[in-house]
């Protein structure tokens, strides 16, 4: 594998909430097109890390470089425009809009700023193509408020795709889904990855992480305790202990 310049370089990220240390000097490096899994017990800081990377909250100390550019001071919408896109654990659709309408927002406000994207076709047509890809084309004009769980997750993913990400952070997209539905989501993510999008998958469903990631990062109590291929990580004594308890 040719070593490329890293896409995302987060160094020594620290975040406290009052007296509680959520992240303690966490380093994360993602290369273009990589598939990385991020796992850890509940409360280990995964969501906080996602929030810091995407800009929903600001980290206390530490630097974040994306495509060589320092982004830790940039607001979330700017980071999205640069190509870091995240989905939410609990889907947050724009309830007053239809499914296709939901996609026009990132197309107009994020994708438009990515060089080379959205030439020729208008927002609406592009949105329909993306819905086709995720299997929601027939629900295009339905209200986004009345979808099933897996449809909401797909919409959340579709909306992220519409922002034309270079790096997609998929935050527990598969929680609570059936086996078949989990497979659907995994294949969607693989399809996306084939197009060159780096993906960080945050999951508790181990078989998904094993199947999907090239590299797995483990977070426990705000610290990174492992960062290696999935096989190595799953057999690491400390990781096992963290999941099964002391």
């Amino acid at each position, binding site marked *: 594998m040719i070593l490329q310049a890293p896409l995302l370089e987060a160094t020594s990220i620290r975040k406290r909430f009052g007296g509680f240390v959520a992240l303690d000097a966490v380093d994360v490096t993602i290369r273009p097109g990589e598939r990385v899994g991020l796992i850890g017990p509940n409360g280990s800081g995964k969501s906080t890390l996602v929030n810091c990377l995407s800009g929903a909250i600001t980290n206390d100390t530490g630097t974040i470089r994306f495509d060589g550019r320092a982004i830790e001071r940039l607001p*979330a*919408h700017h980071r*999205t425009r640069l190509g870091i896109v995240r989905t939410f654990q609990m889907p947050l659709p*724009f309830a007053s*809009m239809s499914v296709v*309408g939901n996609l026009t927002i*990132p197309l107009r*406000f994020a994708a438009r700023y990515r060089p080379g994207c959205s030439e020729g076709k208008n927002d609406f047509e592009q949105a329909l193509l993306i819905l086709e890809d995720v299997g929601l084309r027939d629900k295009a*004009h339905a209200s986004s408020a009345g979808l099933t769980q897996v449809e909401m997750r797909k919409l959340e993913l579709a909306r992220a795709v519409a922002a034309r990400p270079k790096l997609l952070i998929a935050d527990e997209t598969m929680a609570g889904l059936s086996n078949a539905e989990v497979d659907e989501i995994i294949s969607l993510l693989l399809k996306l990855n084939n197009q060159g999008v780096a993906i960080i998958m945050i999951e508790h469903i181990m078989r998904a992480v094993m199947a999907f990631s090239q590299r797995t990062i483990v977070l426990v109590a705000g610290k990174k305790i492992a960062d290696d291929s999935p096989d190595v990580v799953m057999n690491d004594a400390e990781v096992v202990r963290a999941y099964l308890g002391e």
Partner: protein
Amino acid sequence: MTRVPSWVWPIVVAGLVLAASRVVKNEYYMFAGYVVLQYVVLASAWNILGGYSGYVNFGSAAFFAIGAYGTVVLDKLWQPPLVVAIFLGGIVASLVGLVTAYLTLRLRGVFFAIATLALAIVLQTLVMNWDYVGGPLGYYCVRPDSIVGFPSYVNYLFVVMLALAVIAVLVARAIESSFIGRGLAAIRDNELAAECCGVPTLRLKVFATMVSGGLMGMAGAPFPYYITYLDPNSAFSFAYGINSIAMPLVGGMTRWIGPVIGAVLLAVIQQVATVTISSELNLMIVGGLLIGFITVAPNGIVGLFEQYGQQRHGRASP
């Protein structure tokens, strides 16, 4: 037959009203009509921020009064043409909106709402203590006897307010159908998701506040000439605050036509009630309608029509 673009309608209606104003001799209709049109401006302006983005502004009176007292200052200094006063009133109100917005819009919407209320009271207190514009004693603004091209100055004021109403409605419509309007709608639905989809939420909210405040200031600018005696209680009247919210709510907050419907409906009801019953009771009616609609029909009259339409066709809005 080609479809008539919707922006033509406000102009057509305004044209009809203008024609009527030339014919109708009874000045009472000018006075009453001015108030209705003023509320069309206030309601449309309020809705640009409140309806489209979901950030409730309780301080409409503040922006209105900035326009009104701006005219008082100008009247004392050099008595410019009304159009100049309107323009300047709009600019100043817009800038105040900018500062307030920038300071408070990074917090939750609730804090913005409370801050706008605080702003109204702070400004009222400042004006009360400012003797140059009359303080608590008020200011007598002499209405010019006549003006070229109009049968009376009152008629002129009516037409000016009509023009402002058309402007406010067209601005609201333009914003609503533009990408700014879509961004505001995304903010209203879920601000966090909007921000993460690339919507520059702070920038859009500040923009909406500036436009909203500016239009309200413009609505207030002719007021001293209309009422001829301006004091802080009438300029900062609580009625402006509550009507600005109730009218878009009753009419419907998602479309530009909603505030117009709500303004005409509620303003006419209030005028009738003031004349027939009492002026306190008509405010009670507004408060009651506010509570009623927000509980039962939060999307207003327009929302009720849309719901009916959706049930018939089974489609959602794009």
